């Protein structure tokens, strides 16, 4: 087998050196009744050519070359070519957690850069080396708040990504952490009155997302004031990292939990992505996840190493801040390369293009909410199956919101990014218009009857 470097000759020599007669001797001492009698019911091993062929056939069964207006936590941004050039270097790809600092300075330095850039973007003081994704960072942030405040209730806005909220529920349900949801107002943003109503001294954290699931900016400053007045922490979640190129960072938050998929991580049917948690310096020892710190080697040269491991499972075991171990280093590296490439001005221009594209499209559609939005917005479908029509033209429309919000049955969430071509947006607009026109003429016919 091409992946196995030992020849039969090698094997014989090695068995002899190990004092064994045959390969069978490697396992013959194991309980006989447990040893497999039959080979695995898998096919024979395949050649590389067949493997490529197999996946090409499967890949061809999915949407290929469609224009898409899906967002909802997974965004369609350009991936600069340099990103794969970097992460394909075996020295990055095939190394593991940099426990051995002396031969892992490449990974360590890049994570240090990552942590710094995340702080610069979010307005936080410290950031970790990555979480699995934004959805799993959400309960981690909640639990962190519980540890910090010694309170145990969580309030989360209904405008947070529905699947993130579901993950939060899954993770908190058996820990005695009650979770309640906060309504949104007519304008699609957190209902501040509901917040005030539900907030009390038991609440460890209030969790909001901005831009929220509807694409709208939440009023994080106002929310922070309300939350802090009751001694709770404000956790700000983001799913669209590109927005941070343009939008005021949530400096008033105590914890920021986010998803960096937008930064050169391909959608990949939902993963692997890279989550982060960032916070204030004073909470650093309550953070989950790996942290890289700067230090020196014995010659006094700058060096980096994993640090504050006393928070982690391999040292603290059941008292650790989280059980997280393997995280998303390579994806964080992609995001680091992406941020380095776009840089200060590029990231802003990127965000501005997203803003412009989304507003171009939104201006042509019937919107459900009025507030300021970044690159997503909710449009009224009036119950018409616009998506099926678009799909026939190789355009994937928006995410129907009925599946997450029963009150939004006849709406869809659309996203436009720098990748959205004007012509495709015009196609979407036309489909909306056509659907309305069809309905109007249908009404006309009915009226005439």
């Amino acid at each position, binding site marked *: 087998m091409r992946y196995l470097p030992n020849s039969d000759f090698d094997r014989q020599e090695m068995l002899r050196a190990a004092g064994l007669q045959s390969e069978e001797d490697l396992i013959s001492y194991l309980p006989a009744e447990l040893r497999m009698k039959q080979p695995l019911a898998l096919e024979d091993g*395949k050649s590389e050519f067949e493997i490529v062929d197999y996946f090409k056939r499967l890949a061809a069964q999915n949407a290929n070359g469609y224009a898409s207006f899906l967002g909802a936590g997974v965004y369609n941004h350009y991936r600069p070519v340099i990103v794969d050039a970097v992460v394909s270097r075996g020295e990055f790809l095939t190394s593991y957690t940099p426990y051995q600092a002396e031969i892992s300075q490449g990974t360590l330095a890049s994570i240090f850069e990552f942590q710094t850039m995340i702080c*610069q973007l979010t307005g936080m003081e410290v950031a970790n080396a990555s979480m699995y994704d934004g959805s799993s960072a959400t309960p981690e942030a909640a639990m962190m708040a519980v540890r910090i405040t010694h309170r145990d209730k969580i309030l989360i806005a209904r405008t947070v990504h529905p699947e993130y909220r579901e993950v939060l529920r899954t993770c908190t349900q058996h820990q005695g952490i009650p979770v309640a949801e906060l309504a949104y107002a007519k304008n699609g943003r957190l209902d501040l009155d509901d917040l005030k109503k539900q907030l009390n001294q038991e609440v460890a954290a209030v969790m909001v997302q901005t831009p929220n699931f509807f694409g709208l900016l939440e009023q994080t400053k106002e929310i922070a004031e309300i939350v802090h007045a009751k001694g709770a922490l404000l956790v700000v979640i983001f799913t669209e990292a590109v927005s941070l190129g343009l939008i005021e960072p949530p400096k008033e938050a105590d914890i920021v939990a986010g998803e960096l998929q937008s930064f050169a991580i391909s959608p990949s049917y939902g993963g692997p992505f890279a989550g982060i948690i960032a916070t204030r310096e004073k909470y650093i020892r309550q953070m989950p996840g790996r942290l890289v710190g700067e230090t020196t080697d014995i010659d006094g*040269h700058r060096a980096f190493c994993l640090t504050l491991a006393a928070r982690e499972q391999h040292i*603290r075991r059941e008292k650790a801040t989280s059980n997280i171990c393997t995280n998303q280093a390579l994806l964080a590296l992609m995001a680091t390369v992406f941020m380095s490439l776009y840089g200060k001005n590029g990231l802003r221009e990127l965000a501005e293009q997203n803003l412009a594209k989304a507003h171009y499209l939104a201006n042509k559609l019937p919107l459900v909410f009025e507030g300021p939005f970044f690159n997503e917005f909710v449009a009224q479908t009036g119950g018409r199956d616009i998506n099926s029509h678009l799909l026939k033209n190789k355009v994937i429309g928006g995410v129907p919101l009925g599946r997450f919000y029963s009150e939004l049955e006849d709406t869809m969430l659309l996203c436009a990014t720098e990748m959205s071509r004007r012509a495709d947006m015009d196609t979407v607009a036309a489909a909306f218009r056509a659907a309305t026109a069809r309905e109007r003429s249908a009404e006309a016919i009915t009226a005439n009857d």
Partner: protein
Amino acid sequence: MIKKVSPHLVQNEPLLFERSMPGKRGCELPPLDVPAVDPKAVLGAENVRAEIENFPEVSEFEVLRHFTRLSTWNYGIDLGLYPLGSCTMKYNPRVNELVARLDGLAWAHPYQPEEVSQGVMDVIAALERALVEITGMDAVTLQPAAGAHGEFTGILMIRALLETRGGARKKVLVPDSAHGTNPATAAMVGYTVENIRSNDRGMVDLEALAKAVNEDVAALMITNPNTVGVFEENIQKICGILHEKGALVYMDGANMNALAGVLRPGDFGIDVMHLNLHKTFSTPHGGGGPGAGPVAVTKTLAPFLPGPRLKSEGDRWTWNDDLPESVGRVRAYYGNFGVLVRALAYILAHGNGLRQATLDALLNANYLRALLEPYFQIAYKSRSMHECVFSDDRQAKKGVRTGDIAKRLIDYGFHPYTVSFPLIVHGALMIEPTETEGKRELDLFADAMISIAKEVEENPELVRSAPHSTRTRRVDEVTAARRPIVRWRPEQSRHSDSATP
């Protein structure tokens, strides 16, 4: 003598921030094909940020060169043996990287209509099937993002099942040899952890276990082969003890590389287990992830699996959300799909030949053990499976600890083994070669270890102060933790490092 490496030069490189210069950038956008909008006008001035202070400004080539240079400070499997015990650092086939990047897979959106997603769904279905076959369990979820996440999912399901049986119970038993994620997981699901001691053969002490198991116990989390590389020969009895009291058995499958094609946890009596695709199934470790930690369960536990679940409807797949007993999602979307593609590609490459891979993994570990046993104290006399664990007892007499030997290995051109884990072994050296290493590389490693053992006798200080030949010498981790600097700030840097201009 050091045979495997030679001294050479590597490029220095400052941090990106130190390289930054106003006005540069490494990526440009196409001209906007719609009217620009004024951010302040549409968002409100208060919502528009000032420039991102100190964010880097660097040209494309500088970015590539920056990270290329950084990469040369790293060691990876591609460069040589990486015998990090418990981590199964095997070859990462490059074809897997290719297929995971095919447009139709890499650019599939999790919310795209099912009718244009049958290919990705097929990947998921095929991998679930293969893992069911390999583990001998009944059903698999691919949602968890890593081993620890899988553990969480599995223990949560146990909790959910027990609740339907009258109560979640209080405790999870964890052998003292277990990986740190096991107790941490149990705690995250709201259980208290009770340690079970290992016997002098490196296995769970049956008596201690039997004593500990009672109606308060929800589950035992057992690793098999365990972290000393020894097969828990009483695994069936162990499962019996737990089951008798209505408790369940969770198996940490991190060491599945010792079993695939040879033994199936489903035959042991295991109720739930996770797999680490980034270990057994060769998806790249990437400097610390991504991974994937599928969870396999028996029929009894299947209804509690996180949703949604794949369901076939005629000749097509659909996602089924209607799972009343499910513990709920453990993450958004469907798992680390890109990792799943790679793992499936790996399984297809071996097919039923996975058994040979396993046998080679065992052979390599046993070969190394035979070569090293004369020089290092083996932790347990029991037979080894895919890894062998030594103690630094002999070397400690000279004041040299496992961490020192590890650093000295670097001078010899190897990535060290796992240091000081498992905790039950005094000064552990945990060595896992994996099956993708050949005899030549193993011989060089054994030579290096033996040579270091001699150095310990003759010149322990040489070992204690290693590494001597790397760009960065022994790193001061204590200072790092005492006064943490976890981000760059202008003028604050701790270094006095003329070597990074």
